[in-house]
Each structure stands twice: as structure tokens, then as C-alpha cells.
């Protein structure tokens, strides 16, 4: 028998570590150390990463955005105190679940828009005014935010929306009627639009 790290391991270590990790998330939250809590949920548009600060939901990320990279960015831009701690995301996970099963049309969640600044944040604040099942063109949104010439900047604001699905940038389309670009890819955008159209 070697005195090696393995010798002091136990077959139940993975379970123990899961349990301890869960406990750490709760304790860190209680101590005010949980700057960013995250979890992942399954959805009809793939696995979504949800992250929240104590202020509110701060990030919804599609799989194609690369969740590891998203977490690295959150650690850099917000705080490295990032833990998988699903509890804080329970309300968001529930509302998204209701949305995807067509039982919810409006999200009622505290949001933390600190990942976007200036004009982009202004656009993102206005996007929820586009109702469920409706669409607007980039130009109409530019008019909505009082800057009719900023069509391109509206496009950028939609493309950099840190809270897709919840902040409905999928409801903004090019004037051509084509789906246009989307942070989750064109298929995800079409899926959300047809989900809302069918309701």
C-alpha cells in the first residue's frame, strides 16, 4: 500500500464533495461572499447558464457562447467569487421554465444590468417594452429609444445583450423580415419567435 494521495481517497469522495460544494454555496451566500451565483438549466434552445449577483439576474448565456468562457468573463468583470449555487437562480429558472412551456409572457425578476453600459444598456432597458409575440425592426427600436439614426448601435446593443430570452432582443428583426443575427444563433431566435407566435 503506497502512502499516496489515492490512499486517503474514498469511493464516496465525489458525493461528499458535491454535498460540501452545495453547503459552501449556502454558507457563502449567508456570509455575503457570493458575488456571483450560477447554475445551468435545460431548455428547448439548449443548456442555458444563469448567473445572478445579489442585485439580480446578471447573465443568461447560450451554450454556443461557451459557458466556461462566460464564467471567466464574469469573474473578470464582476468578481472572482463565482460559485455554482442554484438556489439564488431558483426564481429565474422557474420563470424561464414557465416561459418555455407557454405559461408566462412577462418576466418578473430583479435584473442587474451592470454588464452593459451607456447606450447599449439604455436599449436593453427598453427591449421589454416589445410585448410577447410582437416584433420590431432595429430602426423602430432606435426610434423607441429616441435616437432614430442609431440603427447600427441598436443592432450592437441587441448582439451584446447579457440577458437574452429574459430581455427580449429576439423580438428585434431586420427590416427585411429575415431573422437576423442572434447571440444564441439564428435557430434559437426562430425557435423563440415561433414559441411566442404559437401561444
Amino acid at each position: 500500500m503506497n502512502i499516496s494521495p489515492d490512499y486517503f481517497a474514498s469511493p464516496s469522495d465525489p458525493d461528499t464533495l458535491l454535498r460540501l460544494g452545495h453547503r459552501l454555496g449556502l454558507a457563502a451566500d449567508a456570509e455575503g461572499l457570493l458575488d456571483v451565483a450560477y447554475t445551468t438549466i435545460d431548455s428547448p434552445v439548449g443548456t442555458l447558464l444563469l448567473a445572478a449577483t445579489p442585485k439580480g439576474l446578471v447573465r443568461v448565456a447560450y451554450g454556443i457562447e461557451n459557458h466556461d468562457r462566460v464564467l471567466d468573463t464574469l469573474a473578470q468583470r464582476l468578481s472572482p467569487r463565482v460559485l455554482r449555487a442554484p438556489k439564488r437562480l431558483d426564481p429565474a429558472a422557474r420563470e424561464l421554465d414557465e416561459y418555455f412551456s407557454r405559461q408566462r409572457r412577462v418576466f418578473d425578476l430583479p435584473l442587474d444590468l451592470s454588464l452593459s453600459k451607456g447606450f447599449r444598456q439604455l436599449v436593453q432597458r427598453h427591449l421589454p417594452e416589445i410585448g410577447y409575440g410582437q416584433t420590431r425592426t432595429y430602426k423602430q427600436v432606435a426610434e423607441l429609444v429616441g435616437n432614430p439614426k442609431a440603427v447600427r448601435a441598436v443592432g450592437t446593443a441587441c448582439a451584446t445583450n447579457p440577458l437574452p430570452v429574459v430581455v427580449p432582443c429576439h423580438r428585434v428583426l431586420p427590416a427585411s423580415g429575415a431573422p437576423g443575427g442572434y447571440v444564441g444563433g439564428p435557430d434559437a431566435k426562430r425557435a423563440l419567435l415561433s414559441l411566442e407566435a404559437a401561444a
Partner: protein
Amino acid sequence: MKQPFEKVVEQHGGTVLRVCRVLLGAHDAEDAWSETFLSAMRAYPELPDNANAEAWLVTIAHRKAIDVLRARKRQPVPVGEVPESPTALGVPGAGDGDGDLWQAVGALPEKQRQAVAYHYVAGLAYAEIAEILGGTTDAARRAAADGVKNLRKNYPGATTEGAPS
């Protein structure tokens, strides 16, 4: 660039658990693990980017284990349950290793047990261990060697084959 703390837990959680187990036994190891990572999370933003995260975590675990051992000494143990060994290293429950080895580890003097944990379980260099224990690199190397010698004596199955040098 600092990685998310979750990655630190993923990468080092297992090692810290095993170190705590060697220092304290299975029962108190989980509490020491929790205290270690909670403290680490508090201090994490100030940790230099190029720091050795594992050595840092083991240093915190070392202090937490000392706190647990001190608290244990203050708590009177019912007569009849006093172990012959100087520590109350709990024999882990079924499936958690070999009771004889645990007893042998628990019987080691504190410094030897720490040196064995930090070198053979955490894989730290003796210079890093010396910083944690205080004292010289040679003293750390000696404590680990004495610890292994004692383990071999009390638990003849133990060898250090394949362990980091």
C-alpha cells in the same frame, strides 16, 4: 487573470478533503473543508494571480485544523472513550479506507502527521511545507521521513513507492 472560485473548488476540493482527513480524521474533515473554502473565498480576490492555489489552500486548512484540534482539547472527552493515541483521529466509516492505517496515522505526532499530509497527500515541496509549519526545509523533510518511518512500523503495509520526492 483570476479564474472563477468554482474552478478552484473543482480543482483542489478533493486534495483539501484528503488533507483534512489525514489531519483530523473523517468526522471533522468535512467541517474543516467547509471552513477552509469559506475563508479562502473571502480572501480570494486578494490572492496574487501567480500564487500556488493548492499551497495557499493547504495553509488555510492547516490553520483550520489547528483550531479544530484546540477546540477538541478544550472539550472534555467522556472517560472510557479516550484513545491511546494523542489524537482522536476518527476511524472512517465502512468503505472509507483501512482502519489500521487510520489508527497509525492518528498515532503520529502532530508535526509528522502534518508533514505527511502536505507532502504525500497534497504533493507540496518541502520548502512550501516549511513555510506552513515554520522551521527549516530540512526539518520539514525530516518530519515527513520520521512520519513515514513510524507509519511503516505501525502499519507494515505502508510504503512510499511512487510518492512525489
